[in-house]
């Protein structure tokens, strides 16, 4: 399987690609160790281990260049299906691992819950906005974090406005969620556990098969040649084949479920960070309806280190920084063209707002939602893809290369 380059995502000007950037590598490794120790000290060992799982996710995402955004864009524009196939593979493995685990309800005293969301108006609007925003912002939930960790300063702007959009979304979610919806639909409740697993595997295979069929009818370019790097060096420095990334991301998502009690998710942390910043400048966020709901209220009142999603996001950024150091590709560049900056701002806002309305991003809703048997994950995928088609068409207006 060829590597899927994401030119707008990973730092485009690697200073010394292929040579380990020792200062950055050492800094990142020490930062991961220090952060995991601090979280363990402040909360508990399991929370510290979640930071390490996040770091592993960041390293895998970076080394495999596992970008949902670039994969979709590549298919929309060039009918290259390798990214989509890898996404279907990682979700398929996660379905086989996560759905049976959820059926246990708890493991080792840890209660387990899936990534569920109601199917309705809010989801459709949110997923469309997210799909549109991810093409303008240059990365999705996971993509934004791992490219920030990799040193992409433009994506730092996207992240800042992702957070802004998410916290605005919390102000409006109660209104949106009161619009017509079918409620939460869990396929395992409708069909039973194993039929639901089988049905989802068939559906994922069908998506991969259709994408491959379309690719064969359109593809003109030859596949990229395989790298000649020795395996040991490739393991350490990348690039990894997408299929390695697919397998490892699914395993790490299942590990997240048994450690955190819920599958991998990203954007709840963005709400929380934004809300805490607003409180710091005197905005009475705690009185907003969303923040009076028990879980958000508890998160807002407590330490950010108590929130599993935040801790994993911190780890993800540091893991990507480590990977960028190992790959010798850490080369932040602050020269951002104004139109590209505008796209980063707009894309970030749309993704943040869309993630809140859509009950998750490409990870919480798409990856973990489908792996949890939640119908909202499938609806999210379909609608966000349509939004991405629109987003890809808008990219040239912002001077972004297609």
């Amino acid at each position, binding site marked *: 399987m060829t590597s899927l380059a994401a030119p707008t995502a990973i730092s485009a000007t690697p200073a010394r690609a292929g040579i380990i950037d020792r200062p950055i590598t050492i800094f990142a490794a020490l930062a991961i160790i220090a952060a995991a120790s601090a979280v363990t000290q402040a909360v508990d060992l399991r929370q510290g281990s979640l930071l390490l799982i996040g770091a592993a996710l960041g390293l895998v995402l970076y080394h495999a260049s596992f970008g949902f955004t670039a994969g979709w864009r590549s298919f929309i524009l060039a009918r290259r299906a390798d990214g989509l196939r890898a996404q279907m593979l990682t979700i398929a493995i996660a379905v086989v691992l996560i759905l049976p685990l959820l059926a246990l309800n708890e493991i080792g005293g840890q*209660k387990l819950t899936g990534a569920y969301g109601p199917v309705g108006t809010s989801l459709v609007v949110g997923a469309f906005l997210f799909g549109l925003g991810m093409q303008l912002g240059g990365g999705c939930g996971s993509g934004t974090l791992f490219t920030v960790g990799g040193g992409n300063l433009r994506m730092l702007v996207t992240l800042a406005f992702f957070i802004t959009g998410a916290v605005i979304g919390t102000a409006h979610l109660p209104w949106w969620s009161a619009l017509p919806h079918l409620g939460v639909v869990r396929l395992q409740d409708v069909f039973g556990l194993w039929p639901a697993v089988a049905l989802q595997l068939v559906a994922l295979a069908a998506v991969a098969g259709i994408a491959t069929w379309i690719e064969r009818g359109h593809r003109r370019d030859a596949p990229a040649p395989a790298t000649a790097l020795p395996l040991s060096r490739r393991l350490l420095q990348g690039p990894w084949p997408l299929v390695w990334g697919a397998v490892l991301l699914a395993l790490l998502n299942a590990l997240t479920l048994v450690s955190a009690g819920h599958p991998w998710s990203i954007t709840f942390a963005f709400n929380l960070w934004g809300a805490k910043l607003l409180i710091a400048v005197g905005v009475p966020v705690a009185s907003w309806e969303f923040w009076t709901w028990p879980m958000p209220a508890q998160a807002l009142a407590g330490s950010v280190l108590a929130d599993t999603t935040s801790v994993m996001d911190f780890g993800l950024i540091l893991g990507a920084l480590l990977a960028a150091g190992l790959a010798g590709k850490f080369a932040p560049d602050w020269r951002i063209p104004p139109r590209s900056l505008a796209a980063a701002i707009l894309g970030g806002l749309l993704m943040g707002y869309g993630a809140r309305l859509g009950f998750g991003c490409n990870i919480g809703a798409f990856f*973990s939602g489908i792996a949890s048997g939640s119908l909202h994950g499938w609806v999210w995928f379909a609608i966000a893809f349509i939004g991405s088609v629109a987003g890809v068409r808008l990219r040239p207006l912002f001077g972004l290369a297609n």
Partner: protein
Amino acid sequence: MTPRLIFLLVLLLAAGAVAADHWAARQRGANVTPIRAGEAGTLGRPSENSGGSVDKFCGFAPCGMPLPCE
């Protein structure tokens, strides 16, 4: 100042903000019980509390959205 230093400075600022938030939470006496599914506070109880515009709920999606009871 090089972009590398700016980037690392941003990371350090973020780390400082996290540390300040944690310190402030401790000063307020807020607990640092990890917020994990089914562990802290009311999260584990499949109760029928008020969930704002969602009248009844029996748990939470990871985004914090109350899930209605079956």
